[in-house]
């Protein structure tokens, strides 16, 4: 089956969820990746949403992190105080997803402003829960479409810190960054390409990166999406709301 780079991105993220248990998840590609993982590599994955839905079993594709379909039939619903205090800060989240408007080589993320804070060129949404997710989740996965605009050498604002000097080791920055071009992990705190998606080139990676990206010596090629993965994924988002 043919597939798009967006599909490859979601599939690559889903595979990384093998062995994880409690996942703090956002809408869109992260949600698709989790739903796919539940149907493939990790049937016992528990989905926790920032809205307070715990162990959600959505009967449709959720269109917001607070979609009522995440509540009906959930395992539990918690207040935001409990969610942030006991689940997230309390260390009960094994893996969490973040998006990014800008990300740097250390995995720090900006979702606050483009331009100066006081008079921004573009006012972005801001942290939401991202700052605490970045600091409190045991492991952070970032899904971000890669381009020279998003992979920048210097963030306009640090909303969610990555592998910055002086940061405590535990959960010290993102574990994995998945883009439409490849999969990155962190080596000595430096974002490092470990797997290139089939069809993507190192030239594309370099063009879509505001610094000279580190590449692993044993750079792998991401196995392409299987027919099973694609069939499940497309059934999850039949209108291609998030798959594009």
């Amino acid at each position: 089956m043919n597939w798009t780079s967006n599909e490859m991105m979601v599939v690559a993220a889903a595979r990384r969820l093998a062995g994880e248990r409690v996942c703090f998840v956002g809408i869109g590609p992260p949600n698709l990746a989790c739903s796919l993982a539940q149907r493939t590599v990790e049937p016992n994955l528990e989905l926790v949403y920032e809205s307070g839905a715990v162990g959600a079993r959505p009967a449709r594709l959720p269109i917001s992190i607070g979609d009522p379909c995440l509540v009906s039939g959930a395992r539990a619903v918690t207040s935001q105080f409990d969610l942030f205090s006991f689940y997230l800060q309390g260390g009960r989240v094994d893996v969490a997803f973040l998006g990014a408007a800008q990300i740097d080589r250390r995995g720090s993320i900006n979702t606050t402003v483009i331009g100066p804070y006081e008079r921004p060129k573009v006012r972005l949404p801001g942290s939401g829960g991202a700052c605490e997710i970045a600091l409190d989740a045991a492991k952070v996965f970032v899904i971000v479409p890669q381009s020279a605009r998003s992979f920048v050498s210097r963030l306009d604002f640090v909303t969610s810190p990555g592998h910055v000097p002086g940061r405590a080791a535990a959960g010290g920055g993102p574990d994995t960054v998945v883009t439409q071009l490849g999969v990155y992990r962190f080596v000595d705190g430096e974002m490092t390409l470990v797997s290139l998606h089939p069809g993507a080139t190192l030239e594309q990676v370099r063009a879509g990166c505001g610094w000279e990206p580190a590449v692993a010596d044993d750079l792998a090629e991401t196995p392409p999406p299987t027919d099973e993965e694609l069939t499940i994924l497309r059934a999850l988002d039949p209108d291609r709301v998030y798959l594009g």
Partner: protein
Amino acid sequence: MSKVVSMSEAVGRLVADGDTVAIEGFTHLICHAAGHEIIRRGRRNLTLCRLTPDVVADQMVAAGVVARLVFSWLGNPGVGSLHAIRRRIESADPEPLEIEEYSHFGMVGRYTAGAARLPFFPLRSYAHSDLPAANPRIVPIASPYGDDTVYAVPPLNPDVAIVHTQRAGADGDAQVWGLLGCQKEAAFAARRVIVVCEEVVPEAVIRSDPNRTLIPGTIVDAVVEAPGGCHPSFVQGYYDRDNRFYLDWDAISRDPALLEAWLDEWVYGLADHAEYRARLGADRWAALAPGEAWSQPVNYGSYG
């Protein structure tokens, strides 16, 4: 004692120019009806507190009600930007908008400190981020045990909190199911509380399930029955999110003239939320109605 009044009376009596107003509800139970009434009554210079200023906040800002926004996530959820708010922040168009920015947990902590009469609330967020530099009210605080340092946020005590709930008793006991957000903390932190509900129910319904009460009537000043009052957001078990509205808002909000026309048609041009509800039409409401999924009741036991 019944506290049931019209939205007009509640807002008229309890929301004043210059007030700090919290309208909470995390994706769920966002009281658009109250926001519209505040616009309709021409309130000015409000400080609007809300984790997620979204469509109703964009409307309130566009209508000139809001001078200052205290928040943690700004956007049209699932769609994109709030353009009226962005114009104010990015271009001071038509005038500047003051902002005070936290993360979600920071906002929840602020309400919690306010509700608990604590001088600060500690949390582990903000380390190594630029948020404390952008907002000097976020400050480090050392643990008195060992050398751990966390961050503090200051208490937030709104003049008034407006909370939408599924059902409430006439004296204000408010019951909620589904996503709870931080409405309880916001209400306890506030000097005045307006409960808006889908249905005013007999006290016996409330008292049949006291664990379901999120906000006790003892802290509530007014109760407003406003079915459909959260449209286009949703109320668990009552109606779904009207996603078309969120999508439509993007184009409306990009164009100040369209936005003004929308406010004229849907807010200024209507007497109250009942007219708004009627204007949306039965078909649109029918399309938002969920199926039924009832909770299994529990036995509290009678001990007499």
